[in-house]
């Protein structure tokens, strides 16, 4: 079965610093990978997705992610974080079975120090 691991439950970075959130997946075939962001009390917003092709994908809000098949990873990066980036971030992989379900990681909570 597919699974997603986000090793870091909570990360704190200073405003203006670079950011990398880790995501590892377990999937037998070519994965469909996603990053979502959730502000407190809100729904999830799609940041970016990877299906195939260029392994470095660009998303909204200045985020990017790199797919590395050899490491089964899809890490999210941002060169310079802003206070408004404080949120919960979820990595997800497209699962097998009906209705094309997504399998989510447990999330990483990002705190920004001023």
């Amino acid at each position, binding site marked *: 079965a597919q699974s997603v691991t986000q090793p870091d439950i909570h990360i704190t970075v200073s405003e203006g610093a670079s950011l990398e959130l880790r995501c590892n997946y377990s999937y037998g075939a070519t994965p469909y990978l996603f990053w979502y962001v959730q502000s407190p009390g809100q729904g999830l917003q799609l940041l970016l997705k990877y299906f195939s092709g260029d392994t470095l994908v660009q998303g909204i809000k200045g985020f990017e992610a790199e797919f590395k098949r050899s490491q089964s990873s899809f890490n999210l990066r941002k060169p310079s974080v802003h206070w408004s980036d404080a949120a919960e971030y979820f990595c997800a992989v497209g699962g097998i079975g009906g209705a*094309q379900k997504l399998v989510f990681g447990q999330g990483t909570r990002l705190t920004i120090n001023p």
Partner: protein
Amino acid sequence: SQTIHQWPATLVQPVGSPLSLECTVEGTSNPNLYWYRQAAGRGLQLLFYSVGIGQISSEVPQNLSASRPQDRQFILSSKKLLLSDSGFYLCAWRRGQALYEQYFGPGTRLTVT
């Protein structure tokens, strides 16, 4: 453009009372619809999904049920709420032809007292 609505936004209900949460999608037809629950500090748990009117699949046995009376309407219900039903409930939709890509509603915060 497509939008997804959920209501109510917040709900406080006593144990043993019934529940009805509604989700509607605008601007698309025949979407796949999903109900998730997010407990405090936890990830997302898929509860139900639907590929069409009247077609409901349950992911985990629980105190909840779902229905899809119209193409773009998805309802989450319970006859008798338990304390463990507290959480943040999220509805999501996927365009029928899109691969896995889901879009989420604003959520409903349910507190069972």
